[in-house]
């Protein structure tokens, strides 16, 4: 069993871009929700700025815009052809790669990605009115659900599938970690004391941005508490967007590759080591040694797994 490196690379990146598009849609959703909160309920004027920070494209944004207005942020993250990580460009890039790899995809996957790309055209070349944002967000989430479901239900369980899943998990882990990176301060215990109940809606928004508000209550059966939010997003393996879940997925699929290919390398070692680090942590220890540092370290480690995968298999 072998794959062209190019094919493996495309599968890896198609999944990443689709996952990224969904994540951007969730970021926009969260920002629009939080920005309409009254100040008395912890509303801030910086939600759109945090959206850009979470997406990790501040410098590029400021080249194109002078202020973090809702319109500018929605345009930049959603529609801008100049931003290579806008939702539009993510779907375009994923579709171009899918077209190049048409035979490596199942029919359902191809139709899902091609259909979403076609539908994206009808959203106009630049921007959409703020009033259409919720419909747009729904469209993007559904595009990602359809692609992910198609892959899960129709792909052969061989290395193609594993590279596709690796892309998805690496990207998802990065997205969840970035949300934590930007919002970590509202989860800190001493901040919770200072902020009182004001941050409640911020915590809820963090959960909502990873579709976990209801799951949270089923897991903890209690009101939203910041340290439990961190626990859920970082350590709960049952939560599909937690760092632990993504990392376990990455390790599993890397191990599959190693076993089928009969050899292993840096990516497997890095994957297992990060996975072990998460399994051996508990949330108190993470807070003790610094939540922010932990998240920053994770982002770096996750990136280096991605780089190792590229070096080992994709080039």
């Amino acid at each position: 069993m072998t794959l062209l490196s190019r094919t493996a690379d495309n599968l890896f990146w198609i999944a990443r871009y689709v996952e990224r598009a969904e994540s951007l849609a969730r970021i926009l959703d969260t920002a629009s929700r939080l920005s309409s909160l009254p100040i008395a309920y912890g509303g801030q004027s910086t939600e759109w700025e945090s959206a850009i920070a979470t997406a990790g494209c501040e410098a590029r944004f400021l080249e194109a815009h002078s202020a973090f207005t809702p319109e500018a942020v929605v345009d930049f993250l959603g529609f801008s052809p100049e931003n290579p990580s806008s939702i539009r460009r993510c779907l375009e890039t994923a579709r171009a790669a899918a077209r190049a790899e048409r035979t490596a995809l199942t029919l359902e996957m191809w139709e899902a990605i091609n259909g979403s790309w076609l539908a994206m055209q009808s959203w106009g070349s630049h921007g959409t009115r703020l009033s259409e944002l919720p419909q747009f967000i729904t469209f993007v989430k559904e595009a990602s659900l359809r692609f992910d479901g198609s892959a899960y239900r129709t792909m052969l369980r061989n290395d193609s599938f594993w590279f596709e899943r690796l892309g998805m998990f690496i990207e998802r882990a990065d997205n969840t970690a970035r949300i934590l990176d930007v919002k970590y301060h509202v989860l800190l215990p001493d901040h919770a004391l200072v902020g009182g109940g004001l941050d409640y809606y911020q915590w809820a928004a963090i959960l909502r941005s990873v579709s976990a508000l209801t799951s949270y209550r089923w897991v903890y059966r209690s009101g939203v508490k910041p340290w439990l939010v961190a626990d859920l997003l970082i350590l709960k393996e049952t939560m599909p967007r937690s760092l632990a879940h993504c990392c376990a997925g990455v390790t599993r699929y890397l191990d599959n590759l190693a076993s089928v290919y009969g050899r292993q390398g840096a990516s497997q070692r890095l994957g297992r080591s990060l996975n072990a680090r998460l399994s051996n942590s508990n949330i108190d220890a993470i807070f003790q040694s610094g939540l922010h540092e932990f998240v920053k370290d994770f982002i770096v480690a996750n990136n280096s797994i991605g780089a190792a995968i590229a070096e080992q298999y994709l080039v």
Partner: protein
Amino acid sequence: MSGRCFDEMHNDDFLCRPAYRRLRDWLRSAPAELLTRRRQEAELLFRRIGITFAVYGEQEAEERLIPFDVIPRILSAAEWSRLSAGLEQRAHALNAFLKDIYGARDIVRAGVVPEDLVFRNPSFRPEMCGTRPVGDIYVHIAGVDIVRVDEDDFYVLEDNARTPSGVSYMLENREAMMRLFPELFAAYRVAPIEGYADALLATLHSVAPSRSEAPCVALLTPGPFNSAYYEHSFLADKLGIELVEGRDLMVRDDIVYMRTTLGPKRVDVLYRRVDDDFLDPLAFRPDSMLGAPGLMSAYRAGNITLANAVGTGIADDKAVYSYMPDILRFYLAEEPILKNVPTFRCREPDALAYTIDHIHELVVKEVHGSGGYGMLVGPHADRATRQNFAERVRRDPENFISQPTLALSTCPTFVDGGLAQRHVDLRPFVLSGADKVRIVPGGLTRVAIAEGSLVVNSSQGGGTKDTWVLGDDLP
């Protein structure tokens, strides 16, 4: 009712009130077909979520949507803070009254409320005498119906202290509005209501029997055939608690368990959406399959908390209602912040005579009725209907009260002909725990869709609106 009634959007000179100005500007700039389109989207959304209800006695319309109006009803921060202070006060009074009625009975001895009205009332549950629920809280969840008749006055129409429903509509209406009108939420800073699930869970935890640190809470539903089943499943999911039916429960040695794949699991708090009568065939209706045999005994032994408590119906009886201002003064030694609608108790001969003579201008209600059933709106009824109803009242006066027909306030509403004024009321949800009272800023606004109608009940064709409480920082 076309006469003078409070217009929520405009003042007497037909100038827009400050809270509504941005909405007005937006409505002016929005193209006409936009509202129609958004209304259709809302309907699709509600169908997809499955937020439907069943109307008893209607076969064909088994699952219906409550009409949703896309124009929000807006309250300023100042209006809300007065209203919520009044609601909290009312909740304290209701709980104090129930504790007293099922305990020392001071208020009866003091002659504030007549003895027979309480103890001969079918809603009075002698089984509750001598049983003290945790924290002396009886009405954990009240859905107080409020009407507004002028700038300054909110009236309580009903206290709904048994198993009030509608909160899922309050929450889903907001979700729908945020999806449909993001531009309005960008123009307004609206106080969030999404904390309701946590507030309710904290309330239920606060009244758990002291046994455990992490109490097990479950929601008891009569099942999918109940008209409010959607709400039961919605709330159980939001709270992260099991949705149980009577057959999922069993009682052994006065302890309540639910049947799980891992064997019996002890339940500490039951948020029950089953009426008193059906809770326990051993204590109440013997033919009921909806409850659990032995539940009442476990309850009296203090091994489980029921929310709301058994026997709260006595506090929202419409005849007892008429004494609420005195009840409130008696326990709290404060003046009521919210007003009571003047009520004629037909059990009193003068009031009966007045009711019969003025039936064309009064609203007449059964004391135990709810949901808009068993009531007559005098000004809207024809002569024959009025005479029939008067006859019923004469035959059984104890069972009726009458009230002046209130001029419910009006709010702009999107109907087929465009925007028009329609009558509205408001049902905020008041949560009383052993630790404190919690009220999320908002409530369910119900709107009488038919022109001139004053009946807002969903079972009678009423609709709902999202209710916005503004932050102080109106941008």
